[in-house]
Every structure is written in structure tokens, then in C-alpha cells.
């Protein structure tokens, strides 16, 4: 069998490939020797592994993922975090305050309040519990500056590009610091509001045009003309 | 007997294994109803009533007949109103309160089987067109739920209607009055249903609760005494086209056997 990366648009129930010896990747199912798509997406076969990259879908937490979340509820011993997912995030108080604290002396609101934005890492998740988060680590914690933009979580690989080509290009040309939450929430912090807006526009463009070939070139062109045009 | 809320996976696995060998957990044939029991006239206060058992599943239906106004869009037809209640005493999973979507679905199935099966000639129930007609209330209670509530409720409702009599009306000065003289309802047809579940690739008739919970698909098919299909409700799971055709044939046979039971109590019903 061969390696085909055709990136053909398929719909639920569309036949992706027929034959023996294929391995099932993401978003496909098998019926006999036929492998069908279960979502709208782009089909590919790499090393006999058949998969479909969904063009739309929700974020399912995975251990180790970096996510950008918003505090939705302050509890006595933990914060509940909206992580743009059917499953909510939980940030335990000990994670922020340290091992020893007494609930009657400390008000968690003094640390993080409803609406605050955090960058966190998923510590554990197995679909039977909420996603446990941590802000302990470099680049993690509360965010006070910048701008948020949203992208369909399944399109994050396009935003990153092959070996980081796309995101590195955007970072380099715009001079912005970009934190990609795997949950589809992107944090953009740049030297100016205009540059942050420019990056946000590019994120939206990638979201909309992920299935159209030549995306990197189009993004590069926009960056080049905007930066030259002195939009800084 | 069964007060379990969750059917153990072991039981489900056993039912699936047996089904794949075309057998059932209670040793019945695939197209066989459980023991059917029908008793008419159990509530003398009602204009008609029946108690039915299909195995452990029990339903009681009562008929009340009053005078009332016809629907504005059907001035020349009597009114049929079917209500089904899944009584809290019938199952630990039933809660008191207004009918939920399950009860509403069963009520509408019973209603369609009777109405579309043309069981009652509603035009015979008109006293003054557009003004005054007989209103037939069918109230059916599921009192013990061990699977296949649909067929039990249809059977109880049909039996109660067959049992029912209505008081004659005398019209004077444009107004009707009911007198004590009674006559049977204008019955024209005798609809009955059979419910089929698919477990794996096997179709079974009249599922018990455990089978129902294991099944991947369910379809109820109604026939009149001339073997015309008068009601279909397939709303759970998937069926191949061939399984649908098979279900029609199986249910027709099952209904004709159920009809024999009904005829023991109501000899005209076949």
C-alpha cells in the first residue's frame, strides 16, 4: 500500500478508501473492507493510516495540552475554568497558593476572579472527570495583556504549519508573542494594538481557509504587504 | 419482579448471545407473544373497560362517553380522545407528573391505531352536526411494566372499546339528553399491533424489559382484521430494508395470533 496525502474533501458516510491492510486514524470507521469518513474534513492516507482532518469539532482535553481558559466560577478550594470544551477545567487552589492554606483565611477571588484569563496545562483528563489544570510552569498563569482570538480547535495544526512554519512566520514578521491554546483560544501579545489585530485577522483567515491550498503563501503575502505598508 | 434500574451487562450479553442463536432468554419463539390474558368489564362504573396482561406487563383501559362539541374542522364526526399514563406504580423508572415524551408517544400510537385503523365510525357519533356529538375518552393506564408497553396499551384500549356501550340520546328542543338505554359502539374494524425489536441481526416479537433495553432497534406495526397495515412506528435504531420487510411479515403473523386471544373474549374481533 502507498502513502497518499490527497487532502480530498469528504463528508460523513463518504467512502475514503477500500481495501485490506489499512489502519484507522482519526474520524473514520470501517465496515468490512470499506473505510468511511464520519465527519466533514480532508482525507489523507499516510503510511497506510487513513484519517480525516475534521474541518469543525470541539476540543477534547488531553494531558499535557496547553490551553487558554477563562475563570467561570470561584469556589472555596478551586476555580472552575471555561476551556472552550464540553468538559470544564478545574484549577485547584493549592496549585496557585501553595501546599498550605486555610480556606477561612483566604479568599480565592484575591488570586483569580471570574472573567480572568489564564494559560494552563492539562494535568489529567479521562472523560469521566473534569480536566485538572495547573498554572505551575514557565509561561503559565494569569494573563493581563493582549488579545484573544478563537479558531476551530481541529485547525490548530494549520495555524502551526509544518514544523511550525506558519506560526513562526507570523511571530517573526509581526513581532507578536502568540500562545496557542490547544482548545482553540489564541492569546496574542504584541508591540502594538494594530499588530495584534493583524495577527487576529490572520488567525481568522486560517480558520476560514484551512481547506484551501496555498494558505502559507497567502498569509506571507498579507504579512509582507501590511508590514511594508507601515501599519505598525 | 424486576425493580432494577440498570440492566446488568451480563444479562444483556446473554440476551445478545442467545439472539445470535435465534433463541430467547425466556425460551419463547422469536415471533411468539408471552401469555396473553384479557378480562373485560372490570370497572362497572366505566362505559367500557378491560384489563390485559402480556406476560408480566399489565394495562387497564377505561372508557367514558359524554356529550360534547365536535372539532371545528370536523363538524360531522364524534370526538375520540386517547390518553395514556405510565403509572408510577408500574416501574421504578416512572415518576409522577404530567405525561413525559414516552407516554405521549404511546398515547399517539394508540390513538393512530384506533383512528387510522377506522376502528370506530366517528360519523355515527354525531347528534347535531357541528353542535353536539358523542365524545369518547379512552384512558389507558400501564400498571406493571415488564416490556412492550405499546402492544399492551393498544390491546387494553381496543378491548375496552369493544366492551363499551353508549347511552342513547334523545333530542328535544335542540338539546340532547342521555337516557339509560344502551347500545354498543359503532365498531367497524379491529386494529392490533405487534412490537418487534432487533437484537444484533435477529428480530423478536413482544420484548420483555431486559430485551427492550438490549435491543438496537424497535418497530411497532398495526394491522386490521383484513391484514391491512394501519399503523407503523419505527423510531428507535436502524433497520436494513430487508429487516423492515421481514418485520412486516413477522408482525402480521404475530398480530393474527394475538387476534385469536382477543376473539376468545370478543368473538367478532376477527
Amino acid at each position: 500500500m502507498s502513502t497518499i496525502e490527497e487532502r480530498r474533501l469528504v463528508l460523513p458516510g463518504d467512502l475514503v478508501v477500500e481495501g485490506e491492510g489499512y489502519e484507522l486514524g482519526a474520524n473514520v470507521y470501517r465496515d468490512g473492507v470499506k473505510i468511511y469518513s464520519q465527519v466533514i474534513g480532508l482525507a489523507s492516507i499516510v503510511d497506510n493510516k487513513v484519517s480525516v482532518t475534521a474541518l469543525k469539532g470541539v476540543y477534547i482535553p488531553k494531558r499535557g495540552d496547553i490551553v487558554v481558559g477563562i475563570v467561570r466560577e470561584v469556589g472555596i478550594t478551586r476555580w472552575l475554568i471555561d476551556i472552550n470544551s464540553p468538559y470544564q477545567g478545574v484549577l485547584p487552589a493549592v496549585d496557585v497558593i501553595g501546599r498550605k492554606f486555610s480556606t477561612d483565611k483566604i479568599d480565592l477571588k484575591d488570586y483569580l476572579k471570574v472573567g480572568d484569563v489564564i494559560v494552563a496545562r492539562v494535568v489529567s483528563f479521562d472523560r469521566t472527570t473534569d480536566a485538572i489544570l495547573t498554572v505551575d510552569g514557565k509561561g503559565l498563569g494569569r494573563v493581563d495583556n493582549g488579545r484573544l482570538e478563537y479558531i476551530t480547535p481541529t485547525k490548530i495544526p494549520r495555524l502551526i504549519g509544518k514544523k511550525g512554519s506558519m506560526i513562526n512566520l507570523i511571530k517573526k514578521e509581526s513581532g507578536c508573542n502568540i500562545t496557542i491554546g490547544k482548545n482553540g483560544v489564541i492569546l496574542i501579545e504584541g508591540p502594538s494594538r494594530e499588530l495584534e489585530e493583524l495577527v487576529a485577522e490572520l488567525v481568522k483567515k486560517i480558520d476560514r481557509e484551512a481547506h484551501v491550498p496555498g494558505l502559507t503563501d497567502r498569509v506571507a503575502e498579507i504579512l509582507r504587504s501590511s508590514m511594508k505598508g507601515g501599519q505598525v | 419482579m424486576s425493580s432494577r434500574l440498570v440492566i446488568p451487562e451480563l444479562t444483556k450479553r446473554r440476551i445478545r448471545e442467545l439472539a445470535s442463536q435465534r433463541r430467547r432468554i425466556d425460551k419463547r419463539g422469536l415471533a411468539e407473544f408471552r401469555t396473553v390474558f384479557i378480562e373485560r368489564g372490570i370497572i362497572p362504573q366505566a362505559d367500557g373497560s378491560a384489563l390485559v396482561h402480556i406476560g408480566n406487563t399489565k394495562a387497564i383501559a377505561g372508557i367514558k362517553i359524554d356529550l360534547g362539541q365536535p372539532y371545528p374542522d370536523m363538524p360531522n364526526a364524534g370526538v375520540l380522545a386517547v390518553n395514556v399514563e405510565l403509572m408510577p406504580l408500574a416501574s421504578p423508572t416512572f415518576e409522577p407528573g404530567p405525561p413525559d415524551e414516552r407516554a405521549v408517544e404511546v398515547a399517539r400510537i394508540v390513538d393512530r391505531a384506533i383512528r387510522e385503523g377506522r376502528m370506530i365510525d366517528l360519523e355515527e357519533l354525531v347528534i347535531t352536526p357541528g353542535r353536539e356529538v358523542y365524545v369518547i375518552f379512552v384512558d389507558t393506564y400501564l400498571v406493571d411494566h415488564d416490556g412492550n408497553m405499546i402492544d399492551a396499551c393498544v390491546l387494553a384500549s381496543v378491548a375496552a372499546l369493544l366492551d363499551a356501550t353508549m347511552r342513547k340520546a334523545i333530542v328535544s328542543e335542540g338539546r340532547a339528553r342521555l337516557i339509560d338505554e344502551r347500545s354498543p359502539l359503532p365498531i367497524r374494524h379491529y386494529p392490533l399491533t405487534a412490537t418487534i425489536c432487533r437484537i444484533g441481526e435477529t428480530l423478536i416479537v413482544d420484548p420483555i424489559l431486559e430485551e427492550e433495553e438490549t435491543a438496537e432497534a424497535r418497530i411497532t406495526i398495526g394491522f386490521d382484521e383484513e391484514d391491512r397495515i394501519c399503523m407503523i412506528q419505527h423510531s428507535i435504531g436502524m433497520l436494513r430494508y430487508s429487516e423492515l420487510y421481514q418485520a412486516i411479515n413477522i408482525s402480521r403473523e404475530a398480530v393474527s395470533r394475538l387476534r385469536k386471544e382477543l376473539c376468545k373474549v370478543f368473538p367478532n374481533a376477527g
Partner: protein
Amino acid sequence: MSEFTRRDGRKPDELRPIKMKVGVLDKADGSAYVEQGGTKVLVAVYGPREVHPRHLGLPESAIVRCRYHMAPFSTKERKSPTPTRREIELSKVIKEALASTIMLDLYPRTTIDIFVEVLQADGGTRCAGITAASLALAHAGIPMIDLVSACAVGKWNGRIIVDLTGEEDEECEADMPVALMPSLERVTLIQLNGRLTPDEFLEAFNLAVKACKYIGELQKATLRSYYEKIKEEVLYEQ
């Protein structure tokens, strides 16, 4: 036989004109609009998302909830907005017709909510609702084994016909809404109101299969063109 005409001049096996669109609502995760003759249906899908109240969630799979609702202005006489028994039943059967096609075990403890709003009713509203809801589910990116296509068939003036109008529906001897997955050849909903002989049933079902196949092709074309239109626009700009 050739004398037979329907009120709107259609042939027995002729569908009314159908229009479909996806992505018609901004906030919903998936949305679709379907017009079939005078019947107009708008559907929104939210989810998979958190279940409220949380105890309704299932530990092993997502749940599906559906509300089929007719707008008060959708009928000749104003319809009260409170749900009727018919709407409660149709909400349930539409939910079941779609739920068995969705990979629910991928999203335990979540819900997928489907809102079917009938804007104008002229026969076949539950079928148009199912067709639109399946489009909206696909548009929302919810994994499923196939699209579901639906159409009503019936018996009117002694003949088996497809896609009944509201008027035909009122006058008919039988009407039979059918939903299926045309390429996998699986039925997910079939209801019969009225009487048919087993032979008439077969004729009607085969007609429904033919109609659903056609509707299925339209659904696929609609979803494809939604993404291809973006592609064309992008390439045109260049």
C-alpha cells in the same frame, strides 16, 4: 393512469422544489435551512456541550435532545406556541431518527441539542426537519456514520405519491414519513398514519427510498458547496 394529476400538477413521484443551506446561524455550532415547496424549516445544533442539569448526563455516552416546534405563524390559523402532544412526539422521533447515526460514545457526559423550528408548514415538516437537522449536525462537525435524508410518501386518491403538501396530507388515505441513510441502506424512522395493504406499503417505501436518495445527493452537494464556495472566493481574490 395518465389522467392522474395532483392538486399542484405534480406527477405521483415528483418532489417539490427543494432549497438547502448550511451555516445560516452565527452562534450555533451547526445550522441549516431547508425549504421543500411551502415547508420552511430552520435547525440549530449546539454541542457536544455540558449537560445542564448535570445529572442528566450519561457516563458512557453523549445524550441527544431535540425540540421540534412550530412557530405560531407557521400555519393558517395561529398555532399556540405551547408544545402540543404532536410536537412532543415528533421531537422524540426526530431525536431517535438521528441519534442512532451519531458516534455518541465519543463524548460521554455531554449533550447534543437539536432545535427544529418550523417557520412555515405545508406538509412534510418532520421530514424536512430531519433532513435539515442531519445537515446541521454534519456542519457542527459531529461524528456520524452517514447523513440522514427524509421524505414523506402517502396514498392520495388511490395512488401512491411522494412529498405530500399540507392539503394532500389532510385529504390522503395514508401518509408515511420515512428517514433513511441512502448509501448504507438503513431506515432510521418510519411512521404510517392511515391504511395500506402490504403491497401498497412496498410501493410507497420504494418511492421513499428513491426520494431520499435524491435528497441525500442534494445534502451532500450543499455541504460540499459550503466549503467549496470559500475556496472559490479565496482563489478569486488572488
